[in-house]
């Protein structure tokens, strides 16, 4: 679904830090959402930690750099990192080109999938959140 020019697929779960999560069987795939990648500008670096890294919900998973801003990526769940998108090592711009597809970032194994309930899901939750974020961050001032 499109919200004021930003693409937010309705079937995905969204972390308030602007990362999306897709459920694939008992695994999770995550990446940066369209709003964040547009505001960030050219992504120049994505940290790809070792597989097997233990993840703590809300704690640092990795770092990402754009427009000379080095930001943190926080884990949306407790669990383990099981794969990274190796393509991003050479082509971090894939996030700008296709943030929900070729620009995916990490594959995770959640300790408890019910933690997804804490994320934003469904048009009723996503739309007001994105509209508030646009008002807060995307306007000039």
């Amino acid at each position, binding site marked *: 679904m499109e919200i004021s020019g930003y693409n937010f697929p309705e079937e995905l779960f969204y972390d308030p830090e*602007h990362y999306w999560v897709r459920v694939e069987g008992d695994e999770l795939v995550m990446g940066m959402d369209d709003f*964040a990648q547009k*505001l*960030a*500008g050219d992504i*120049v*670096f994505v*940290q790809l930690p070792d597989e097997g890294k233990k993840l703590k919900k809300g704690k640092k998973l990795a*770092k990402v*750099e*754009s*427009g*000379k*801003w*080095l*930001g*943190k990526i926080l884990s949306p769940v407790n669990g383990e990192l099981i794969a990274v998108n190796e393509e991003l*090592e*050479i082509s971090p711009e894939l996030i700008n080109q296709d943030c929900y597809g070729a620009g995916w970032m990490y594959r995770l194994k959640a300790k408890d999938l019910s933690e997804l309930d804490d994320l934003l899901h469904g048009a009723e939750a996503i739309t007001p959140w994105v509209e508030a*974020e646009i008002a*807060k*961050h*995307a306007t*000039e*001032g």
Partner: protein
Amino acid sequence: MLDTMHLYRLGRVSWQESQLAYHALAHLGREGLVLCSPERPYVSVGYSQDPAQELDLAYCAEAGLPVFRREVGGGAVYLDRHQLFWQVVLKRNHPLVSLNRQRFYNRLLAPVVAAYQDLGAPARVAPVNDVAVGGRRIAGTGAGEIGDSVAFVGNLMRRFDCAAMARVLRAPDEAFRRCFHGHMESQLTSLRRELGAKREAALDDEALYDCLAARFAEVLGPLEKRTVDDELRSAMERLGRRLLSPEWTYRRRKPRPHRKVKVRAGLFLHHWKGQSPEGHLEAQFTSQDHKVVELRLQGEAVDLQRLESRLLAEFMGRDARSLQKRLSSLAARAKAA
């Protein structure tokens, strides 16, 4: 109403302290403004950079130039005492911190721009986060989320040694280094260049710090002077053990075929290295506002000049990314063959 912000006016400090103080504040979650300059020259690289790919490490060692990898973004930079550092540390949830990075930079660079103007240099923000005078860069900056804080750092440039900067950079050949040096000389400026050597030399570092502190107070709120206390000192020592270690500094990164070196906002020098169907190929090109403005090829192609002319005709004045794609497709064809 903003809380009182702490001001750490450290003045001339060791090169290590000139980096560790703001890192330590950020890790401690203590907000503040640090003003300092290093007592000796050194080189700092961005968090995501591999010093072995960005710097001529043999030269740095020979010249006695230490290398520091910061927890902040941006590129490699030569630093010395003629640059007065300003380093702002805010909590991640501070009202000035926005996901809209341009807004953040505009707000936090306003004091720097005003300080340059106070001193007689008509500076302005050059998006994303440079400060420029008459189109020439006069300050580079970088930001990073450290702990639960955001650090935004940059400098007030009294003088900038372009030759030293060009020398510490890793260059595929001397032509690349000369080209980079030439761009730096023409595209960078400093207080010395803007005001003249006599006026710049007459400026006292303390007066410049006064000016910066006054202007930052307009944005950050009242500044209360602090010194390096025991908590900060021990955090710096603790962090130093990690951030000054060779394991941290010289962390390797997979080499990428395309390297881009910034001269100023919108002006980049590129180097691409790979295989073409006819053998090894290297391309050096300059982009200005994303458009190719210079291109030079080297390599083993039988008719290198013809290939260069063809690429020039096709890509001169066009998007640099399309040239990159063409070079990547040459490499893909070579791989397939």
